[in-house]
């Protein structure tokens, strides 16, 4: 332990604690702007300066040392922080009222806290024509004019995700964040995971907003507009209305969506149960019958699919061909459901509410996404967009009564709900695979498969005994952690050895969908844990906890699909993958 003094208070902290974190222990919140607890401090902004033995240092990146005497506030420090903010504002557009981050912008709130009332320095703000926003992905919008060069997006894109779509280009006053060659993001390695948008402190990186399109659908009397919500949305949407992270608000969300005017409320968790039937059966085909290569890798995360098609195209045969749960619900809504209620599928519009920006791209990523004869899912919204829509509608979310989802795509099991966090898809799959292989249900106490739960470790491994045969399993989250797993597989395959795993689950975002790029901002590991616990609680309280026990799923197979991996299933619920070059074309280079 280290002894030091902060603002006259003596404290002890463990070695390696930063001044920023040490100060929190005595209720001192040093302001930060470029710092984010998920990321290594870049110390680019300087707003967190404090005086250490009289010398100004940045609190975010300075470790506490024995005997330090720190002052976190005096008129000189406050003036320095104000000057930093004034300089930031000198190249930041004065467009708060029309900005997507209005009222939820870290720069704006600091400007408010420090009482900046005028722009002291000459403004150097390029016009929108000189520096246009890049919305080429239709998932993520990069508006370089609003960038304060804090480096969070670059850090998360390069270090956490290992995608390297974004970098700092040029130097000095020309420095900007952009893809190599200043290419549009859609033509680069960007996997649309949206982690940059979840970490950006300002409006420089944000979700592509489709809410107007959805309002128009809801208004059109020709359409029968239905909606579905992803597992992870039910434990995060409440945050936008002041509820604690992890609060399970499924019933309130159903009620809110019904009041927004959706004709039927479905649940992606139902789709997750169907995914397990298909993917679980696919695994059994590969594992016990040798039909297809091992290891099999999960495919429900579209950012991960994009990553694999770009960075590991040689692994394509290892991918499960199964579509993601919301794509399955989309396909079934325009076939099975359309038949049931006797409405022309062309009149049905499907909206997905997802914790994810990449889902916006997934809905058109291949011809299989049009398996119903129409685009299976018409629009995918993020949690942040649906929160705004509910607010626009003046719905008092917190006090809404709990309602239920609609048949036939609304009932779900605990296995469907755990899809929302890292390890959950594997857990759900193993519950059903165990039943399908052994003919016996898993013991209730074994349903939570502890070795693959949790978010501390980026790669989680375990083995499971299945009828005397060992199944070797790996779970990775955050695409930056995937390389290690896949390289082990690649090496073994190249040497002609038995691969180290049979079954691999990957989710592109840290913690899985609960930490998705479209979730309410301000995510830290504590928030991820809270959301995960919320979903685990939802699972525990479910009547059925295994996908194959879902009565509506059983009915779906009996009445419509036949059996998992049937021709009809293959047509509606499966897809294929193709290698994608990292850079689609050469940029026109100027220098």
């Amino acid at each position, binding site marked *: 332990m280290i002894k030091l003094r902060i603002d006259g208070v003596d404290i002890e902290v463990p070695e390696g604690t930063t001044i920023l974190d040490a100060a929190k222990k005595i209720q001192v919140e040093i302001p930060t702007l470029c710092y984010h607890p998920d990321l290594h401090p870049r110390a680019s902004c300087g707003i967190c300066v404090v005086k250490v033995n009289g010398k100004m240092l940045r609190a975010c990146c300075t470790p506490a040392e024995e005997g330090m005497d720190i002052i976190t506030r005096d008129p000189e420090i406050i003036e320095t922080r104000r000057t930093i903010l004034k300089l930031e504002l000198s190249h930041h557009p004065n467009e708060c009222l029309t900005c997507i981050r209005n009222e939820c912008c870290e720069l704006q709130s600091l400007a408010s806290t420090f009482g900046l009332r005028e722009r002291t320095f000459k403004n150097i703000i390029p016009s929108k024509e000189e520096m246009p926003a890049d919305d080429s992905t239709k998932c993520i919008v990069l508006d370089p004019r609003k960038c304060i060069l804090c480096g969070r997006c670059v850090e998360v894109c390069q270090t956490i995700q290992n995608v*390297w779509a974004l970098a700092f280009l040029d*130097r000095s006053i020309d420095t900007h964040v952009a893809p190599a060659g200043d290419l549009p993001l859609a033509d680069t390695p960007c996997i649309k995971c949206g982690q940059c948008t979840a970490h950006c402190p300002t409006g420089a990186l944000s979700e592509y907003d489709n809410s107007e399109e959805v309002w128009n659908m809801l208004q059109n009397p020709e359409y029968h507009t239905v909606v579905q919500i992803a597992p992870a949305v039910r434990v995060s949407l409440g945050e936008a209305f002041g509820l604690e992270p992890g609060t399970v608000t499924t019933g309130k969300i159903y009620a809110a969506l019904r009041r927004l005017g959706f004709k039927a409320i479905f649940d992606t968790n139902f789709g997750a149960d169907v995914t397990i039937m298909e993917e679980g059966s696919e695994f059994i085909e590969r594992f016990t019958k040798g039909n297809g290569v091992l290891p099999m890798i999960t495919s429900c995360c579209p950012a991960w699919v994009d990553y694999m098609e770009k960075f590991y195209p040689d692994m394509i045969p290892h991918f499960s061909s199964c579509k993601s749960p919301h794509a399955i619900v989309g396909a079934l809504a325009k076939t099975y459901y359309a038949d049931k209620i006797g409405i022309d599928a062309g009149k049905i519009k499907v909206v997905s509410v997802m914790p994810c920006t990449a889902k916006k791209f997934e809905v058109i990523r291949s011809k299989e996404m049009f398996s119903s004869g129409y685009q299976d899912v018409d629009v995918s919204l993020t949690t942040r967009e649906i929160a705004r829509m509910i607010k626009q509608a003046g719905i008092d979310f917190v006090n809404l009564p709990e309602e239920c989802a609609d048949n036939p795509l609304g009932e779900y099991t605990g296995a469907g709900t755990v899809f929302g966090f890292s390890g959950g898809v594997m857990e759900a799959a193993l519950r059903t695979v165990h039943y399908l292989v052994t003919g016996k249900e898993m013991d209730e106490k074994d349903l939570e498969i502890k070795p693959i739960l949790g978010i501390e470790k980026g790669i989680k491994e375990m083995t499971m005994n299945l009828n005397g045969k060992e199944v070797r399993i790996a779970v990775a989250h955050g695409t930056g952690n995937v390389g290690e797993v896949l390289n082990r597989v690649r090496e073994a395959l190249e040497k002609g050895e038995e691969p180290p795993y049979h079954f691999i689950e990957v989710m592109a975002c840290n913690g899985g969908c609960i930490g998705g790029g479209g979730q309410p901002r301000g995510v830290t590991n504590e928030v991820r844990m809270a959301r995960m616990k919320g979903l685990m609680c939802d699972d525990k309280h479910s009547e059925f906890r295994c996908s194959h026990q879902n009565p509506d799923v059983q009915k779906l197979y009996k009445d419509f699909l036949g059996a998992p991996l049937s021709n009809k299933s293959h047509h509606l619920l499966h897809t294929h993958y193709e290698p994608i070059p990292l850079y689609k074309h050469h940029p026109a280079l100027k*220098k």
Partner: protein
Amino acid sequence: MSETEQEIKEKTNALLTKWKSKRGALIMALHEIQGVFGYVPWEAMEVTSRELGIPMARIYAVLTFYNYFKLNAPGKVIVSVCDGTACHIKGAPDIIEGFQRCLNIKDGETTDDGMFHLQIVRCLGCCGLAPVVVINGKTYGKTVATDVPKMVNEWRQKMAEA
């Protein structure tokens, strides 16, 4: 002389061999690439990225950070306009503007046909001739803005004849 994409890839591949096992070789490798081609072509960046295992974004960030690196083939006719103190006072800004307008390019750029490259340089050491322009080694002294079209035409003709 300009190489085809295939030639660029092959030449880059060959020269990277000695840098592959060295850590921190990127900048030296890029210097060598520019030495061969006169600039760092996008194809060469892609080969470098693959062979050295360095993401394109990092390579491009390095290339745009250091002023020395060029991303485009320099023009066949290199127009250097001096904007040192003496030339500046004697009217170099008008000459620069003249070339920019006449060639429709800015400082450091090359015309679309790859013919002219414009660069602003500091003192050339012949201040008595200010403002000075040097085109492919030929010096033009005491220039005025109206000389610009004449100089451009002279070199267009020369290149057409050659």
